[in-house]
């Protein structure tokens, strides 16, 4: 069988694949030239343009994003500053309110104390006055009552005021003395 293969090979026209035929080279060169020109002049410039556009677009987007971020940061700072201002203002208002409150309470306390003092003083004055008038009235009434009582008891009229007065005084003094003694 091997012999048969060799015989068949020998019978056919022997060709060396290492020696190029002219048509082989010519058509290879033509094909390569066509492909080279196609890629060189048609495909690669288009691709290059597109790649440039793409990187430009990407860079543009990055720039846009940077800008947006800067804006956002500025807005955030402004907001933070406003917030801090508002906080400070609120603090000031609160301080003022506290101070006002303290002042109001103090004033109210002072007013109340003064009022209380006034009320106490007037009450004392009134009490004193009433006590005085009561003492006077009592003395008068007790005197006449005692005289009436005594007149009744002694059966004599103590019409003489001088005497009557002395008598009453003595009576009262006795009364006080007895009160002391009974204590």
């Amino acid at each position, binding site marked *: 069988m091997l012999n048969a293969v060799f015989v068949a090979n020998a019978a056919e026209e022997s060709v060396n694949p290492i020696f190029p035929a002219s*048509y082989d080279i010519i058509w290879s060169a033509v*094909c*390569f030239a066509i492909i080279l020109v*196609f890629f060189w002049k048609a495909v690669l410039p288009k691709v290059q343009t597109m790649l440039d556009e793409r990187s430009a677009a990407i860079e543009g987007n990055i720039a846009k994003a940077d800008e947006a971020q800067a804006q956002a940061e500025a807005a955030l700072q402004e907001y933070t500053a406003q917030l801090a201002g508002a906080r400070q203002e609120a603090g000031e208002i609160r301080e003022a309110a506290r101070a006002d409150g303290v002042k109001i309470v103090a004033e109210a306390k002072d007013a109340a104390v003064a009022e209380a003092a006034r009320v106490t003083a007037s009450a004392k004055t009134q009490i004193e006055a009433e006590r005085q008038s009561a003492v006077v009235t009592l003395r008068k009434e007790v005197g006449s009552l005692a005289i009436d009582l005594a007149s009744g008891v002694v059966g004599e009229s103590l019409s003489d005021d001088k005497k009557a007065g002395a008598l009453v005084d003595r009576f009262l003094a006795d009364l006080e003395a007895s009160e002391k003694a009974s204590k």
Partner: protein
Amino acid sequence: MHIPFVSANDGEFHGPTINEFFPPVIFFEGTPFEINRIILIRFLAVAVIILLFWLATRKMSVVPGRGQSLAEMALDLVRGGIAEDLLGKVDGRRFLPILTAMFFIILGFNITGIIPGLNIAASSTIGFPLVLAVVSYVTFIYSGIKKSPKNFFKNSLFPAGVPWPVYIIVTPIELISTFVIRPVTLTLRLLMNMIVGHLLLVLFFSATQFFFFTADGFFKLFGVGSLAFGFAFTLFEILVAVLQAYVFTLLTAVYIQLALAEEH
């Protein structure tokens, strides 16, 4: 259509031969512009590459659609992964057209090897790898000479950091490796990968055909095995197609980078 492997008549198994890669001429026989099946496949591959990329980049937009995304991903493999990575932004952009064209034409020509109906890599005859190797060769020598002829030849032939007597040995080696070996290896690496890949596939599938339809009884079972191998190598060929395109382009970029380098 060229069907060289099995002739069902004689009941013998014929392995694939090198004549696979030299199908009968279809047009312009006898002129230097002969067109055979492989050349027609090249034209088709070129048309498909142009059509795909034209469709994908017809309406480029900053926010890509599905087709544009795929095309961008593919183009970025060369732009980012090879050109800018090795050559930097400025030189990367200068050599981008040649590297991109190189990558996609090699990929397109390689992949036809596993496309049903085409079944042969358009890059599997020496003309194509040779032309691209010459392009790569001319490009890296041009870039080196244009930048600084003195630096270029000094770096290529007299690598720095070597005591001078060693140059007696090193310089001829560098001369051969830079100006002879490089294009030859570029050519042969691609060519042989494609030739061997195709021969393997033909071998597995013609063996499958033979086992299934010509062999007797028990031997028919071998057909299952050879079919499975044929399938596995078809997948492998996809990898090879992409890998060879990548390696060829990458090496070209590396050569340009070395030619542009101030100092090794």
